[in-house]
């Protein structure tokens, strides 16, 4: 009895958690600096930073993604400035990995053109690469010391979409069927059924062995 009730409660909680998650929204890119992360502009060993002017902060931005690359990234502090006026700020903790880092920021109701994004890295033993595309000096990003970098980095402005994952189910299924074999959005159906079968079988086995 105790095992059965616990199993039922556990599965109910799991189902509720999945439903709640799928009721959430994906993150969408509101705006991008349209720079391809094609090459390394600079490498730094932490405690350094850079600023990039000529950016536009879209209304509703809740996170900013920077094209920084590291295996074990340091803390990243980000500020958005219009002249000397602070628009918004945010921090991403250390330990991130990969080709970009997303910094959550305080949401702004209004968009702001011609502003400057600055970031500062925390201490680290490992090199962090600033990745972007070479540009002319006049529009290039600048290091924390004011020295022009060889180009601009890719900056993306993100927020949660106005639609849920449930509403995107058919789009996601279609995308899952591309670039693979077997191809076709139908692949999502057997995938769902197989995983449902795995969970059901595991639950039945656990109940049978432990009651």
């Amino acid at each position: 009895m105790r095992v059965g009730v616990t199993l039922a409660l556990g599965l109910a909680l799991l189902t509720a958690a999945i439903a709640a998650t799928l009721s959430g929204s994906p993150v969408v890119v509101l705006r991008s600096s349209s720079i391809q992360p094609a090459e390394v502009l600079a490498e730094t060993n932490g405690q350094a930073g850079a600023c990039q002017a000529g950016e536009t902060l879209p209304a509703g931005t809740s996170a900013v993604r920077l094209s920084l690359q590291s295996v074990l990234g340091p803390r990243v502090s980000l500020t958005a400035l219009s002249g000397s006026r602070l628009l918004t700020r945010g921090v991403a903790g250390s330990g991130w990995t990969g080709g970009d880092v997303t910094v959550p920021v305080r949401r702004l109701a209004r968009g702001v053109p011609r502003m400057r994004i600055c970031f500062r890295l925390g201490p680290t033993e490992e090199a962090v690469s600033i990745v972007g595309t070479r540009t002319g000096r006049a529009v290039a990003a600048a290091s924390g010391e004011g020295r022009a970098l060889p180009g601009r980095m890719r900056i993306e402005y993100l927020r949660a979409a106005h639609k849920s994952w449930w509403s995107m189910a058919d789009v996601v299924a279609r995308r899952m069927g591309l670039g693979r074999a077997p191809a076709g959005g139908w692949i999502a159906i057997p995938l769902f059924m197989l995983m449902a079968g795995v969970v059901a079988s595991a639950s039945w086995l656990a109940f049978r062995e432990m009651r």
Partner: protein
Amino acid sequence: MLARVPTVAWVCASLAVVNAVCWSLIMPPFQVPDEQDHFAYVQQLAETGHLPSRAGRQYSDEEIVALQDLAHPRVRFRPSGRPIFSRAEQEKLQSDLAQPLPRRGPGGAGVAASEPPLYYALQTIPYGLGSKGSILERLELMRLLSALMGGATALFAFLFLREALPASRWAWTVGGLGVALAPLLGFISGAVNPDAMLIALSTALFYCLARSFRHGLTRGWAVAIGALVATGLLTKLNFVGLVPGALLGLVLLARRAARVSGARVYRQWLLPAALLAVSPGVLYVLANAVSGRSTFGVVSTGIASITSGHHSIGGALSYIWQFYLPRLPWMHNDFGQIFTTRQIWFRDLVGLYGWSDTFFPGWAYGAALMPTGLITALCIRALASGRNGLRARGGELATYAAMTVGVLGLIGAAGYHEFPSLSAEYAEPRYLLPMIALWGGVLTLAARGAGRRWGPAVGVLIVVLAAGHDIFSQLQVIARYYG
């Protein structure tokens, strides 16, 4: 042996296979670490009958076109990168792959080139079965073979628990299902990666050792252990980390058996098993000596790199310690403000997929601390209540500890080779999967630690937690690539 395997173990194995198949359908082609290199190795072997001749990324035209059309460079390492989304891109891919593209290339296989050939030789079978299809069809067939290896891992994990924890009959299922549903196992076993076979062999090794410690060593089991070690060394070089511990276990078992069967055990059981175990290593040394390369090959290179330049033995030990654990007061700080135990290993074991570019929202890792802490506490409680029995099993526990330390040390040493230009180059959780049998043991003990009254209910909750972890990992991967 197979006739005495309980049905529950087969069910765990089947669930692990299905789970890995699901992961193979979710992960886009070549978005599992180094999968393009492993595929190139198999293709080189299948098409030419020769091993890869070079370590560069010089693949066949067919593979190069596939990687280009799949937008592979823009996706890997970049959480913002997406695979192909449009019908036009799909049509271009299908059109290009329908061309008679050469399958023989210059013989490059990237990071896989230096690996032993056994896994790749087995993968030539599904490669051949799909030879009339596209590269993507062959890749999926090869992924299915790896999925079968995931099933073998779950099977041997259950059998290990049956031998290592005989008093916990009802709780074996907790550990078996916990292994079968481990998302990291599904992720790796759903891809073309020799780690899938390495993990299965290491879990089988744990089982053979546990069985021998419980029932006593026989000549057959000694040979089986030796054969597993030899097979592991022919599968992936990482298996070297397990060898000292496995040989220690053999010696301890032989000593115990000699008290009953006499000194002949050393000559007739231990010696053949040990020779069988190290035979691939001996062949490797001889091959290098004959070809004029450094006699101990990668081992010589590794030792030279540790003792040259800024590196030292003391520095290596300090680095390896900090690679996993908090720095001790007298050590140089090699990782800055990074708390490696939590920010690398715990975080990545909770969820890091793709090319280390797919992960949960930050709050999820904090939330995972609670169930992890509870499982750990219950496991410790179970161990504490059975501590008298632990003393009697000191040799067995020392064997498992030595195998674990060997693997951890090997990964840490590889990371030190790249230090300081890269702080934690090999800090990937999949490298810890050879010890997944021990994780099954932790889950089993946690269920037992909840006591006779609540243990089964806690066990069921652990299984639901494992299923939830797996599902949410899959959902996170789907969101990252297709959202």
